[in-house]
Protein backbone atom coordinates (compact mmCIF):
# COMPACT_ATOMS: atom_id res chain seq x y z
CA UNK A 1 0.00 0.00 0.00
CA UNK A 2 1.20 3.47 -0.93
CA UNK A 3 2.57 5.32 2.14
CA UNK A 4 0.23 8.22 1.61
CA UNK A 5 -2.79 5.92 1.61
CA UNK A 6 -4.28 5.40 5.05
CA UNK A 7 -7.38 3.40 4.13
CA UNK A 8 -7.96 1.14 1.16
CA UNK A 9 -11.34 -0.48 0.57
CA UNK A 10 -11.99 -2.97 -2.24
CA UNK A 11 -15.35 -4.49 -3.17
CA UNK A 12 -16.61 -4.19 0.40
CA UNK A 13 -19.99 -5.68 1.22
CA UNK A 14 -21.71 -5.82 4.60
CA UNK A 15 -24.80 -7.87 5.28
CA UNK A 16 -26.79 -8.20 8.49
CA UNK A 17 -29.07 -11.08 9.34
CA UNK A 18 -32.70 -9.98 9.50
CA UNK A 19 -35.16 -12.66 10.51
CA UNK A 20 -34.49 -15.63 8.26
CA UNK A 21 -32.92 -13.49 5.53
CA UNK A 22 -30.21 -10.87 5.20
CA UNK A 23 -30.11 -7.13 4.77
CA UNK A 24 -27.32 -5.74 2.61
CA UNK A 25 -26.11 -2.51 4.20
CA UNK A 26 -23.12 -1.99 1.93
CA UNK A 27 -22.18 -3.49 -1.39
CA UNK A 28 -19.36 -3.15 -3.87
CA UNK A 29 -17.64 -0.26 -2.09
CA UNK A 30 -14.15 0.52 -3.32
CA UNK A 31 -12.48 3.64 -1.93
CA UNK A 32 -9.06 4.94 -1.02
CA UNK A 33 -8.34 7.60 1.59
CA UNK A 34 -5.10 9.58 1.71
CA UNK A 35 -3.37 10.75 4.88
CA UNK A 36 -4.56 14.18 5.99
CA UNK A 37 -7.91 14.03 4.19
CA UNK A 38 -10.93 15.88 5.57
CA UNK A 39 -13.64 13.75 4.06
CA UNK A 40 -17.35 13.35 4.57
CA UNK A 41 -19.56 10.36 3.97
CA UNK A 42 -22.93 11.84 3.17
CA UNK A 43 -26.24 10.41 2.27
CA UNK A 44 -29.72 9.86 3.62
CA UNK A 45 -30.46 7.78 6.71
CA UNK A 46 -29.89 4.08 6.06
CA UNK A 47 -27.46 4.71 3.23
CA UNK A 48 -24.65 2.91 5.10
CA UNK A 49 -22.51 5.84 6.35
CA UNK A 50 -22.23 4.65 9.94
CA UNK A 51 -21.75 1.02 8.90
CA UNK A 52 -18.83 2.03 6.68
CA UNK A 53 -17.38 4.15 9.47
CA UNK A 54 -17.70 1.26 11.92
CA UNK A 55 -15.88 -1.11 9.59
CA UNK A 56 -13.09 1.42 9.03
CA UNK A 57 -12.93 1.85 12.81
CA UNK A 58 -12.64 -1.97 13.29
CA UNK A 59 -15.79 -1.96 15.39
CA UNK A 60 -17.43 -4.17 12.78
CA UNK A 61 -16.19 -6.61 10.17
CA UNK A 62 -16.87 -6.76 6.44
CA UNK A 63 -18.93 -9.64 5.06
CA UNK A 64 -16.99 -9.51 1.80
CA UNK A 65 -14.11 -7.59 0.30
CA UNK A 66 -10.92 -6.12 1.71
CA UNK A 67 -10.48 -3.20 4.06
CA UNK A 68 -7.00 -2.05 5.04
CA UNK A 69 -6.60 0.55 7.75
CA UNK A 70 -3.12 1.91 8.49
CA UNK A 71 -1.71 -1.03 6.55
CA UNK A 72 -3.65 -3.68 8.49
CA UNK A 73 -6.36 -5.83 6.96
CA UNK A 74 -9.47 -5.45 9.11
CA UNK A 75 -10.85 -8.84 8.13
CA UNK A 76 -8.24 -10.98 9.84
CA UNK A 77 -7.91 -8.93 13.02
CA UNK A 78 -8.58 -10.58 16.36
CA UNK A 79 -10.50 -8.59 18.99
CA UNK A 80 -7.22 -7.84 20.70
CA UNK A 81 -5.47 -6.68 17.52
CA UNK A 82 -8.45 -4.53 16.61
CA UNK A 83 -8.41 -2.98 20.10
CA UNK A 84 -4.69 -2.23 19.70
CA UNK A 85 -5.29 -0.63 16.30
CA UNK A 86 -8.06 1.57 17.73
CA UNK A 87 -6.03 2.41 20.80
CA UNK A 88 -2.99 3.71 18.92
CA UNK A 89 -4.27 4.85 15.53
CA UNK A 90 -7.95 5.73 15.59
CA UNK A 91 -9.91 8.37 17.45
CA UNK A 92 -13.71 8.39 17.59
CA UNK A 93 -16.13 11.27 17.89
CA UNK A 94 -19.79 10.38 18.42
CA UNK A 95 -23.03 12.21 17.87
CA UNK A 96 -23.94 11.85 21.55
CA UNK A 97 -20.36 12.60 22.71
CA UNK A 98 -20.17 9.35 24.74
CA UNK A 99 -18.27 10.99 27.57
CA UNK A 100 -17.87 8.97 30.76
CA UNK A 101 -20.19 10.74 33.16
CA UNK A 102 -18.43 9.88 36.41
CA UNK A 103 -15.13 11.32 35.17
CA UNK A 104 -14.07 14.95 34.98
CA UNK A 105 -13.16 16.59 31.67
CA UNK A 106 -9.49 15.99 32.44
CA UNK A 107 -10.08 12.31 33.27
CA UNK A 108 -12.19 11.76 30.17
CA UNK A 109 -9.40 13.03 27.97
CA UNK A 110 -6.74 11.28 30.02
CA UNK A 111 -8.54 7.96 29.58
CA UNK A 112 -7.20 7.46 26.06
CA UNK A 113 -3.65 7.90 27.37
CA UNK A 114 -4.17 5.61 30.35
CA UNK A 115 -4.70 2.80 27.88
CA UNK A 116 -1.33 3.58 26.33
CA UNK A 117 0.51 3.40 29.66
CA UNK A 118 1.91 6.92 29.59
CA UNK A 119 3.38 8.31 32.80
CA UNK A 120 1.29 10.71 34.88
CA UNK A 121 3.47 13.66 33.85
CA UNK A 122 3.21 12.79 30.14
CA UNK A 123 -0.54 12.39 30.46
CA UNK A 124 -0.97 15.70 32.22
CA UNK A 125 1.07 17.55 29.61
CA UNK A 126 -0.79 15.95 26.70
CA UNK A 127 -4.23 16.50 28.26
CA UNK A 128 -3.54 20.16 29.01
CA UNK A 129 -2.35 20.62 25.42
CA UNK A 130 -5.51 18.95 24.09
CA UNK A 131 -7.64 21.14 26.36
CA UNK A 132 -5.83 24.14 24.96
CA UNK A 133 -6.64 23.03 21.37
CA UNK A 134 -10.33 22.95 22.16
CA UNK A 135 -10.31 25.98 24.44
CA UNK A 136 -11.50 24.25 27.59
CA UNK A 137 -8.48 24.69 29.86
CA UNK A 138 -10.64 26.32 32.52
CA UNK A 139 -13.15 23.44 32.54
CA UNK A 140 -10.67 20.65 33.20
CA UNK A 141 -12.22 19.80 36.56
CA UNK A 142 -15.85 19.92 35.45
CA UNK A 143 -18.04 16.87 35.03
CA UNK A 144 -19.76 16.35 31.63
CA UNK A 145 -23.12 17.06 33.25
CA UNK A 146 -21.90 20.60 33.97
CA UNK A 147 -21.04 21.32 30.32
CA UNK A 148 -23.10 22.47 27.36
CA UNK A 149 -23.53 20.25 24.29
CA UNK A 150 -20.90 22.20 22.37
CA UNK A 151 -18.43 21.92 25.24
CA UNK A 152 -19.07 18.17 25.56
CA UNK A 153 -18.32 17.70 21.88
CA UNK A 154 -15.12 19.70 22.28
CA UNK A 155 -14.10 17.39 25.11
CA UNK A 156 -14.85 14.43 22.83
CA UNK A 157 -12.63 15.99 20.14
CA UNK A 158 -9.85 16.50 22.67
CA UNK A 159 -10.22 12.87 23.80
CA UNK A 160 -10.01 11.67 20.21
CA UNK A 161 -7.02 13.89 19.42
CA UNK A 162 -4.97 13.63 22.62
CA UNK A 163 -3.29 10.42 21.55
CA UNK A 164 -2.39 11.97 18.17
CA UNK A 165 -4.09 9.29 16.07
CA UNK A 166 -3.56 8.97 12.34
CA UNK A 167 -7.28 8.77 11.78
CA UNK A 168 -10.34 10.33 13.42
CA UNK A 169 -13.79 8.96 12.65
CA UNK A 170 -16.66 11.28 13.49
CA UNK A 171 -20.20 10.00 13.33
CA UNK A 172 -22.63 12.91 12.97
CA UNK A 173 -20.55 15.14 15.28
CA UNK A 174 -22.75 18.19 14.81
CA UNK A 175 -26.17 16.52 14.84
CA UNK A 176 -26.92 17.52 18.43
CA UNK A 177 -25.49 21.02 18.17
CA UNK A 178 -26.89 24.39 17.16
CA UNK A 179 -25.57 26.18 14.08
CA UNK A 180 -22.97 28.29 15.92
CA UNK A 181 -21.55 25.34 17.83
CA UNK A 182 -21.56 23.18 14.70
CA UNK A 183 -19.42 25.74 12.88
CA UNK A 184 -17.08 26.05 15.85
CA UNK A 185 -16.64 22.31 16.18
CA UNK A 186 -15.96 21.71 12.51
CA UNK A 187 -13.61 24.68 12.30
CA UNK A 188 -11.73 23.26 15.26
CA UNK A 189 -11.41 19.87 13.60
CA UNK A 190 -10.35 21.47 10.34
CA UNK A 191 -7.63 23.38 12.19
CA UNK A 192 -6.40 20.18 13.88
CA UNK A 193 -6.50 18.44 10.51
CA UNK A 194 -4.19 21.05 9.10
CA UNK A 195 -1.90 21.42 12.13
CA UNK A 196 -1.47 17.72 12.94
CA UNK A 197 -2.12 16.23 9.48
CA UNK A 198 -4.71 13.91 11.03
CA UNK A 199 -7.15 12.24 8.64
CA UNK A 200 -10.79 13.02 9.45
CA UNK A 201 -13.68 11.03 8.08
CA UNK A 202 -17.18 12.19 8.90
CA UNK A 203 -20.51 10.54 8.54
CA UNK A 204 -22.86 13.48 8.18
CA UNK A 205 -25.83 14.95 6.44
CA UNK A 206 -25.30 18.36 7.98
CA UNK A 207 -24.94 21.02 5.27
CA UNK A 208 -22.89 23.18 7.63
CA UNK A 209 -20.24 20.47 7.93
CA UNK A 210 -20.15 19.87 4.19
CA UNK A 211 -18.89 23.40 3.56
CA UNK A 212 -15.62 22.52 5.23
CA UNK A 213 -15.01 19.13 3.59
CA UNK A 214 -12.27 18.53 1.04
CA UNK A 215 -13.95 15.46 -0.31
CA UNK A 216 -17.54 14.29 -0.25
CA UNK A 217 -18.49 10.66 -0.78
CA UNK A 218 -22.19 10.24 -1.29
CA UNK A 219 -23.68 6.91 -0.37
CA UNK A 220 -27.07 5.76 -1.51
CA UNK A 221 -28.60 2.38 -0.67
CA UNK A 222 -25.28 1.00 0.48
CA UNK A 223 -23.26 1.94 -2.58
CA UNK A 224 -21.07 4.88 -3.56
CA UNK A 225 -23.23 7.22 -5.59
CA UNK A 226 -20.71 10.00 -6.01
CA UNK A 227 -17.14 10.66 -4.90
CA UNK A 228 -15.99 14.22 -5.53
CA UNK A 229 -13.17 16.46 -4.44
CA UNK A 230 -14.16 19.97 -3.45
CA UNK A 231 -12.11 22.48 -5.33
CA UNK A 232 -10.44 24.36 -2.52
CA UNK A 233 -7.20 26.09 -3.25
CA UNK A 234 -5.25 23.17 -1.73
CA UNK A 235 -7.19 20.62 -3.76
CA UNK A 236 -6.66 22.55 -6.95
CA UNK A 237 -2.94 22.40 -6.30
CA UNK A 238 -3.27 18.70 -5.55
CA UNK A 239 -5.17 18.05 -8.77
Amino acid sequence: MDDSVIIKIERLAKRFPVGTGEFTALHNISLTFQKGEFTGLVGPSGSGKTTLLNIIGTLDYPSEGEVEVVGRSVKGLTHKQAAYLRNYNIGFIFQTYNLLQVYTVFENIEFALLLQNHTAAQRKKAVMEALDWVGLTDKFNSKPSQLSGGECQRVAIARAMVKRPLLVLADEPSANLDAKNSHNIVQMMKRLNKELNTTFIFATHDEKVMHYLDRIITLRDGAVDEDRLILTRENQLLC
Partner: protein
Amino acid sequence: MLAFKLAFRNLLGAGLRTWLNVTVLSIAFVVIVFYSGMLDGWNRQALTDTKNWEVGFGQLWHPNYDPFDPFCLQDAHAPITGKTKALAELGQITPILITQATIYPQGRMQNIFLKGIDPNQKIIQLPTSELNNKTDEVPAIIGKRMAEEAKIKQGDRLLVRWRDKNGTFDTREVKIVSVFNCNVQSVDNKQIWIPLKTLQQITGLENEATLFIAGSAFKNQTLTPWQFKELKYLLREIDEIIQTKKVGAGVIYGLLLSIALLAIFDTQVLSVFRRQKEIGTYIALGMTRAQVVAIFTIEGSAHSLLAILLGTLWGSPLLWHLQNSGIPMPKSVDSMGVSISENIFPVYSMGLILSTVLLVIISATIVSYFPTRKITKLRPTDALKGKIQ
Protein backbone atom coordinates in the same frame (compact mmCIF):
# COMPACT_ATOMS: atom_id res chain seq x y z
CA MET B 1 -3.78 -1.49 37.91
CA LEU B 2 -5.66 0.50 35.31
CA ALA B 3 -8.70 -1.72 35.74
CA PHE B 4 -8.62 -1.15 39.54
CA LYS B 5 -8.28 2.59 39.09
CA LEU B 6 -11.16 2.77 36.63
CA ALA B 7 -13.32 0.37 38.62
CA PHE B 8 -12.97 2.40 41.81
CA ARG B 9 -13.65 5.65 39.96
CA ASN B 10 -16.80 4.19 38.45
CA LEU B 11 -17.86 2.66 41.73
CA LEU B 12 -17.49 5.85 43.72
CA GLY B 13 -19.05 7.80 40.88
CA ALA B 14 -22.17 5.62 41.12
CA GLY B 15 -22.93 7.22 44.50
CA LEU B 16 -25.92 6.03 46.52
CA ARG B 17 -26.33 2.73 44.64
CA THR B 18 -22.79 1.76 45.59
CA TRP B 19 -23.20 2.74 49.23
CA LEU B 20 -26.46 0.83 49.60
CA ASN B 21 -24.81 -2.36 48.34
CA VAL B 22 -21.73 -1.73 50.43
CA THR B 23 -23.82 -1.15 53.56
CA VAL B 24 -25.76 -4.40 53.13
CA LEU B 25 -22.55 -6.34 52.49
CA SER B 26 -20.81 -4.71 55.46
CA ILE B 27 -23.69 -5.81 57.70
CA ALA B 28 -23.28 -9.39 56.45
CA PHE B 29 -19.52 -9.14 57.03
CA VAL B 30 -19.81 -7.86 60.60
CA VAL B 31 -22.58 -10.33 61.51
CA ILE B 32 -20.51 -13.25 60.20
CA VAL B 33 -17.46 -12.13 62.17
CA PHE B 34 -19.59 -11.49 65.27
CA TYR B 35 -21.46 -14.79 65.15
CA SER B 36 -18.36 -16.86 64.38
CA GLY B 37 -16.51 -15.01 67.12
CA MET B 38 -19.34 -15.76 69.53
CA LEU B 39 -19.27 -19.47 68.66
CA ASP B 40 -15.49 -19.55 68.95
CA GLY B 41 -15.68 -17.73 72.27
CA TRP B 42 -18.33 -20.11 73.49
CA ASN B 43 -16.32 -23.08 72.26
CA ARG B 44 -13.16 -21.86 73.94
CA GLN B 45 -14.96 -21.04 77.17
CA ALA B 46 -16.78 -24.39 77.20
CA LEU B 47 -13.57 -26.32 76.60
CA THR B 48 -11.63 -24.35 79.20
CA ASP B 49 -14.39 -24.60 81.81
CA THR B 50 -14.92 -28.31 81.23
CA LYS B 51 -11.19 -28.91 81.49
CA ASN B 52 -10.84 -26.79 84.62
CA TRP B 53 -13.94 -28.02 86.43
CA GLU B 54 -14.45 -31.59 85.32
CA VAL B 55 -11.98 -33.48 83.20
CA GLY B 56 -8.59 -31.95 84.05
CA PHE B 57 -5.89 -33.19 81.65
CA GLY B 58 -7.56 -36.55 81.09
CA GLN B 59 -9.17 -39.24 83.22
CA LEU B 60 -8.43 -42.78 84.24
CA TRP B 61 -11.64 -44.79 84.17
CA HIS B 62 -12.48 -48.11 85.71
CA PRO B 63 -13.17 -50.48 82.78
CA ASN B 64 -16.81 -50.86 83.87
CA TYR B 65 -17.44 -47.16 84.16
CA ASP B 66 -19.83 -45.62 81.65
CA PRO B 67 -20.91 -42.06 82.39
CA PHE B 68 -24.20 -42.65 80.58
CA ASP B 69 -25.14 -45.77 82.56
CA PRO B 70 -25.84 -45.17 86.27
CA PHE B 71 -26.34 -48.91 86.87
CA CYS B 72 -22.71 -49.61 86.03
CA LEU B 73 -21.56 -47.79 89.16
CA GLN B 74 -21.96 -50.68 91.59
CA ASP B 75 -19.35 -52.62 89.58
CA ALA B 76 -17.22 -49.68 88.45
CA HIS B 77 -14.74 -49.25 91.28
CA ALA B 78 -11.35 -50.64 92.20
CA PRO B 79 -8.81 -50.14 94.99
CA ILE B 80 -6.35 -47.31 94.85
CA THR B 81 -3.10 -49.17 95.10
CA GLY B 82 0.50 -49.18 93.92
CA LYS B 83 1.18 -46.66 91.18
CA THR B 84 -2.21 -44.93 91.36
CA LYS B 85 -1.80 -44.43 95.09
CA ALA B 86 1.68 -42.97 94.58
CA LEU B 87 0.46 -40.67 91.80
CA ALA B 88 -2.49 -39.55 93.93
CA GLU B 89 -0.14 -38.78 96.81
CA LEU B 90 2.04 -36.76 94.44
CA GLY B 91 -1.02 -34.79 93.38
CA GLN B 92 -0.74 -35.88 89.73
CA ILE B 93 -4.13 -37.55 89.84
CA THR B 94 -7.09 -37.27 92.17
CA PRO B 95 -9.51 -40.16 92.84
CA ILE B 96 -13.28 -39.83 92.55
CA LEU B 97 -15.76 -42.35 93.87
CA ILE B 98 -19.28 -42.23 92.52
CA THR B 99 -22.41 -43.91 93.78
CA GLN B 100 -26.13 -43.49 93.28
CA ALA B 101 -28.14 -41.96 96.06
CA THR B 102 -31.50 -40.45 96.82
CA ILE B 103 -32.31 -37.16 98.53
CA TYR B 104 -35.62 -35.90 99.88
CA PRO B 105 -35.73 -32.16 99.52
CA GLN B 106 -39.02 -30.80 100.80
CA GLY B 107 -40.33 -34.32 101.08
CA ARG B 108 -39.85 -35.17 97.41
CA MET B 109 -37.62 -38.00 96.38
CA GLN B 110 -34.86 -37.19 93.91
CA ASN B 111 -32.17 -39.46 92.52
CA ILE B 112 -28.68 -38.04 92.49
CA PHE B 113 -25.04 -39.03 92.21
CA LEU B 114 -23.05 -38.90 95.38
CA LYS B 115 -19.46 -38.15 94.50
CA GLY B 116 -16.48 -38.42 96.77
CA ILE B 117 -13.45 -36.22 96.18
CA ASP B 118 -10.29 -35.42 98.09
CA PRO B 119 -10.93 -32.03 99.78
CA ASN B 120 -7.27 -31.12 99.27
CA GLN B 121 -7.11 -31.79 95.55
CA LYS B 122 -5.81 -28.98 93.35
CA ILE B 123 -6.46 -30.47 89.92
CA ILE B 124 -9.96 -29.17 89.23
CA GLN B 125 -11.50 -25.91 90.36
CA LEU B 126 -14.31 -27.37 92.48
CA PRO B 127 -14.13 -25.58 95.86
CA THR B 128 -13.40 -28.88 97.61
CA SER B 129 -11.46 -27.18 100.41
CA GLU B 130 -14.90 -26.25 101.78
CA LEU B 131 -15.29 -29.96 102.57
CA ASN B 132 -12.64 -29.58 105.27
CA ASN B 133 -15.22 -27.66 107.36
CA LYS B 134 -15.69 -29.34 110.66
CA THR B 135 -19.39 -30.17 111.11
CA ASP B 136 -21.31 -32.85 112.92
CA GLU B 137 -22.93 -33.83 109.69
CA VAL B 138 -21.24 -34.86 106.47
CA PRO B 139 -20.09 -31.67 104.75
CA ALA B 140 -21.27 -31.40 101.15
CA ILE B 141 -20.94 -28.97 98.28
CA ILE B 142 -23.39 -28.57 95.41
CA GLY B 143 -23.63 -26.44 92.28
CA LYS B 144 -26.09 -23.59 91.78
CA ARG B 145 -28.23 -25.64 89.34
CA MET B 146 -28.61 -28.45 91.84
CA ALA B 147 -29.38 -25.90 94.56
CA GLU B 148 -32.05 -24.22 92.44
CA GLU B 149 -33.59 -27.45 91.27
CA ALA B 150 -33.80 -29.00 94.75
CA LYS B 151 -34.46 -25.61 96.38
CA ILE B 152 -31.49 -26.05 98.71
CA LYS B 153 -29.25 -23.30 99.99
CA GLN B 154 -26.01 -23.09 101.84
CA GLY B 155 -26.38 -24.26 105.45
CA ASP B 156 -29.32 -26.55 104.69
CA ARG B 157 -29.32 -30.09 105.92
CA LEU B 158 -30.38 -32.86 103.65
CA LEU B 159 -31.23 -36.49 104.16
CA VAL B 160 -29.30 -38.74 101.81
CA ARG B 161 -29.96 -42.44 101.30
CA TRP B 162 -27.63 -44.82 99.50
CA ARG B 163 -26.76 -48.49 99.24
CA ASP B 164 -23.45 -49.73 100.53
CA LYS B 165 -21.30 -52.30 98.78
CA ASN B 166 -23.51 -55.09 100.08
CA GLY B 167 -26.70 -53.45 98.76
CA THR B 168 -27.87 -52.41 102.19
CA PHE B 169 -29.69 -49.03 102.40
CA ASP B 170 -28.25 -46.48 104.76
CA THR B 171 -29.04 -42.82 105.42
CA ARG B 172 -27.14 -39.83 106.78
CA GLU B 173 -27.76 -36.17 107.03
CA VAL B 174 -25.42 -33.97 105.01
CA LYS B 175 -24.89 -30.25 105.47
CA ILE B 176 -24.49 -28.01 102.45
CA VAL B 177 -21.35 -26.06 103.32
CA SER B 178 -21.04 -24.30 99.98
CA VAL B 179 -22.96 -23.70 96.76
CA PHE B 180 -20.56 -23.17 93.90
CA ASN B 181 -21.21 -21.32 90.69
CA CYS B 182 -19.90 -23.18 87.69
CA ASN B 183 -20.66 -23.23 83.96
CA VAL B 184 -20.16 -26.97 83.65
CA GLN B 185 -23.48 -28.56 84.39
CA SER B 186 -22.08 -32.11 84.40
CA VAL B 187 -20.36 -31.40 87.74
CA ASP B 188 -23.46 -29.66 89.05
CA ASN B 189 -26.77 -31.19 87.96
CA LYS B 190 -28.17 -33.87 90.25
CA GLN B 191 -24.98 -34.43 92.22
CA ILE B 192 -23.58 -33.85 95.66
CA TRP B 193 -19.88 -33.75 96.41
CA ILE B 194 -18.68 -35.02 99.77
CA PRO B 195 -15.20 -35.93 101.11
CA LEU B 196 -13.81 -39.05 99.44
CA LYS B 197 -12.91 -40.72 102.71
CA THR B 198 -16.46 -40.27 104.01
CA LEU B 199 -18.02 -41.76 100.91
CA GLN B 200 -15.57 -44.67 100.94
CA GLN B 201 -16.42 -45.26 104.57
CA ILE B 202 -20.24 -45.08 104.31
CA THR B 203 -20.32 -47.28 101.20
CA GLY B 204 -17.78 -49.77 102.58
CA LEU B 205 -15.60 -49.16 99.56
CA GLU B 206 -12.51 -48.34 101.60
CA ASN B 207 -9.68 -46.93 99.53
CA GLU B 208 -11.59 -47.40 96.26
CA ALA B 209 -12.32 -45.10 93.33
CA THR B 210 -14.43 -45.06 90.18
CA LEU B 211 -12.09 -42.82 88.23
CA PHE B 212 -9.13 -40.50 88.58
CA ILE B 213 -8.81 -37.01 87.24
CA ALA B 214 -5.32 -36.31 85.88
CA GLY B 215 -3.42 -33.09 86.42
CA SER B 216 -0.97 -31.40 84.06
CA ALA B 217 2.01 -33.30 85.50
CA PHE B 218 0.48 -36.69 84.73
CA LYS B 219 2.17 -38.71 81.96
CA ASN B 220 0.07 -41.38 80.30
CA GLN B 221 1.17 -44.84 81.44
CA THR B 222 -0.22 -48.33 81.96
CA LEU B 223 -2.13 -48.40 85.23
CA THR B 224 -4.10 -51.65 85.23
CA PRO B 225 -7.09 -51.87 85.45
CA TRP B 226 -7.55 -48.16 84.81
CA GLN B 227 -8.07 -46.95 81.23
CA PHE B 228 -6.78 -43.54 80.29
CA LYS B 229 -9.22 -41.27 78.45
CA GLU B 230 -7.55 -38.41 76.64
CA LEU B 231 -8.78 -34.84 76.82
CA LYS B 232 -9.80 -34.98 73.17
CA TYR B 233 -12.06 -37.95 73.91
CA LEU B 234 -13.56 -36.35 76.97
CA LEU B 235 -14.26 -33.07 75.17
CA ARG B 236 -15.61 -34.64 71.98
CA GLU B 237 -19.23 -33.91 72.83
CA ILE B 238 -18.57 -30.21 73.19
CA ASP B 239 -16.75 -30.26 69.88
CA GLU B 240 -19.69 -32.03 68.26
CA ILE B 241 -22.21 -29.58 69.68
CA ILE B 242 -20.12 -26.61 68.52
CA GLN B 243 -19.70 -28.17 65.08
CA THR B 244 -23.47 -28.60 64.85
CA LYS B 245 -23.92 -24.99 65.88
CA LYS B 246 -21.43 -23.94 63.20
CA VAL B 247 -23.42 -25.75 60.54
CA GLY B 248 -26.54 -23.92 61.69
CA ALA B 249 -24.62 -20.65 61.72
CA GLY B 250 -23.36 -21.43 58.21
CA VAL B 251 -26.95 -21.39 56.98
CA ILE B 252 -27.44 -17.96 58.54
CA TYR B 253 -24.19 -16.70 56.96
CA GLY B 254 -25.29 -18.12 53.64
CA LEU B 255 -28.63 -16.31 53.82
CA LEU B 256 -27.08 -13.03 54.90
CA LEU B 257 -24.36 -13.19 52.30
CA SER B 258 -26.86 -14.19 49.63
CA ILE B 259 -28.94 -11.07 50.28
CA ALA B 260 -25.86 -8.88 49.97
CA LEU B 261 -24.52 -10.74 46.95
CA LEU B 262 -27.90 -10.67 45.27
CA ALA B 263 -27.79 -6.87 45.51
CA ILE B 264 -24.36 -6.86 43.86
CA PHE B 265 -25.48 -9.34 41.21
CA ASP B 266 -28.52 -7.18 40.51
CA THR B 267 -26.34 -4.09 40.24
CA GLN B 268 -23.99 -5.87 37.86
CA VAL B 269 -26.81 -7.09 35.64
CA LEU B 270 -28.24 -3.57 35.59
CA SER B 271 -24.80 -2.09 34.91
CA VAL B 272 -24.22 -4.28 31.87
CA PHE B 273 -27.77 -3.56 30.72
CA ARG B 274 -27.79 0.19 31.29
CA ARG B 275 -24.16 1.04 30.61
CA GLN B 276 -23.90 -0.44 27.15
CA LYS B 277 -22.99 2.91 25.66
CA GLU B 278 -20.16 3.19 28.14
CA ILE B 279 -19.04 -0.36 27.30
CA GLY B 280 -19.11 0.53 23.59
CA THR B 281 -17.10 3.68 24.32
CA TYR B 282 -14.46 1.72 26.22
CA ILE B 283 -14.11 -0.65 23.27
CA ALA B 284 -14.03 2.20 20.75
CA LEU B 285 -11.31 3.90 22.78
CA GLY B 286 -9.15 0.82 22.46
CA MET B 287 -9.97 -1.48 25.35
CA THR B 288 -10.24 -5.18 24.74
CA ARG B 289 -13.42 -6.93 25.80
CA ALA B 290 -11.44 -8.78 28.46
CA GLN B 291 -10.31 -5.43 29.89
CA VAL B 292 -13.90 -4.19 30.00
CA VAL B 293 -15.02 -7.42 31.69
CA ALA B 294 -12.17 -6.95 34.17
CA ILE B 295 -13.29 -3.38 34.95
CA PHE B 296 -16.87 -4.44 35.57
CA THR B 297 -15.84 -7.49 37.61
CA ILE B 298 -13.42 -5.50 39.74
CA GLU B 299 -16.08 -2.82 40.12
CA GLY B 300 -18.51 -5.41 41.53
CA SER B 301 -15.83 -7.05 43.59
CA ALA B 302 -14.69 -3.68 44.93
CA HIS B 303 -18.05 -3.49 46.71
CA SER B 304 -16.63 -6.15 49.01
CA LEU B 305 -13.47 -4.14 49.71
CA LEU B 306 -15.50 -1.05 50.54
CA ALA B 307 -17.85 -3.20 52.62
CA ILE B 308 -14.92 -4.56 54.60
CA LEU B 309 -13.64 -1.03 55.14
CA LEU B 310 -17.05 0.23 56.17
CA GLY B 311 -17.68 -2.87 58.29
CA THR B 312 -14.35 -2.34 60.02
CA LEU B 313 -15.28 1.28 60.72
CA TRP B 314 -18.62 0.62 62.35
CA GLY B 315 -18.10 -2.99 63.37
CA SER B 316 -14.77 -2.68 65.21
CA PRO B 317 -16.03 -0.58 68.14
CA LEU B 318 -19.14 -2.75 68.43
CA LEU B 319 -17.26 -6.05 68.33
CA TRP B 320 -14.60 -4.70 70.68
CA HIS B 321 -17.31 -3.68 73.15
CA LEU B 322 -18.97 -7.11 72.96
CA GLN B 323 -15.62 -8.82 73.36
CA ASN B 324 -15.00 -6.92 76.57
CA SER B 325 -18.47 -6.81 78.11
CA GLY B 326 -19.60 -10.24 76.91
CA ILE B 327 -23.00 -11.30 75.68
CA PRO B 328 -25.45 -12.22 78.47
CA MET B 329 -27.03 -15.64 77.94
CA PRO B 330 -30.49 -16.54 79.19
CA LYS B 331 -30.75 -19.23 81.84
CA SER B 332 -32.72 -21.51 79.54
CA VAL B 333 -29.60 -22.23 77.47
CA ASP B 334 -28.40 -24.38 80.37
CA SER B 335 -30.74 -27.07 79.14
CA MET B 336 -28.80 -27.31 75.86
CA GLY B 337 -26.44 -29.82 77.39
CA VAL B 338 -23.27 -27.87 76.93
CA SER B 339 -21.25 -25.74 79.28
CA ILE B 340 -22.29 -22.14 78.87
CA SER B 341 -21.46 -19.19 81.05
CA GLU B 342 -23.71 -16.31 82.05
CA ASN B 343 -21.76 -14.13 79.63
CA ILE B 344 -20.15 -15.32 76.43
CA PHE B 345 -17.05 -13.41 75.45
CA PRO B 346 -16.59 -13.59 71.67
CA VAL B 347 -13.12 -14.34 70.35
CA TYR B 348 -12.15 -12.75 67.03
CA SER B 349 -9.06 -14.53 65.82
CA MET B 350 -6.96 -13.33 62.89
CA GLY B 351 -7.86 -16.54 61.08
CA LEU B 352 -11.56 -15.86 61.52
CA ILE B 353 -11.28 -12.29 60.24
CA LEU B 354 -9.06 -13.23 57.29
CA SER B 355 -11.27 -16.16 56.28
CA THR B 356 -14.38 -13.95 56.45
CA VAL B 357 -12.65 -11.25 54.40
CA LEU B 358 -11.66 -13.86 51.80
CA LEU B 359 -15.16 -15.35 51.78
CA VAL B 360 -16.73 -11.94 51.16
CA ILE B 361 -14.21 -10.92 48.47
CA ILE B 362 -14.28 -14.22 46.59
CA SER B 363 -18.06 -14.56 46.63
CA ALA B 364 -18.50 -10.91 45.57
CA THR B 365 -16.01 -11.43 42.73
CA ILE B 366 -17.82 -14.53 41.50
CA VAL B 367 -21.25 -12.89 41.46
CA SER B 368 -19.73 -9.82 39.83
CA TYR B 369 -18.10 -11.83 37.08
CA PHE B 370 -21.09 -13.85 35.87
CA PRO B 371 -23.26 -10.97 34.61
CA THR B 372 -20.27 -9.30 32.94
CA ARG B 373 -19.59 -12.31 30.72
CA LYS B 374 -22.38 -10.90 28.57
CA ILE B 375 -20.00 -8.11 27.56
CA THR B 376 -17.90 -10.56 25.55
CA LYS B 377 -20.94 -11.22 23.38
CA LEU B 378 -21.89 -7.56 22.91
CA ARG B 379 -21.40 -6.11 19.45
CA PRO B 380 -19.56 -2.81 19.97
CA THR B 381 -21.64 -1.08 17.31
CA ASP B 382 -24.88 -2.00 19.08
CA ALA B 383 -23.36 -1.21 22.47
CA LEU B 384 -22.42 2.28 21.28
CA LYS B 385 -26.02 2.92 20.34
CA GLY B 386 -27.11 1.60 23.75
CA LYS B 387 -29.24 -1.01 22.05
CA ILE B 388 -30.68 -3.69 24.32
CA GLN B 389 -29.42 -7.04 23.11
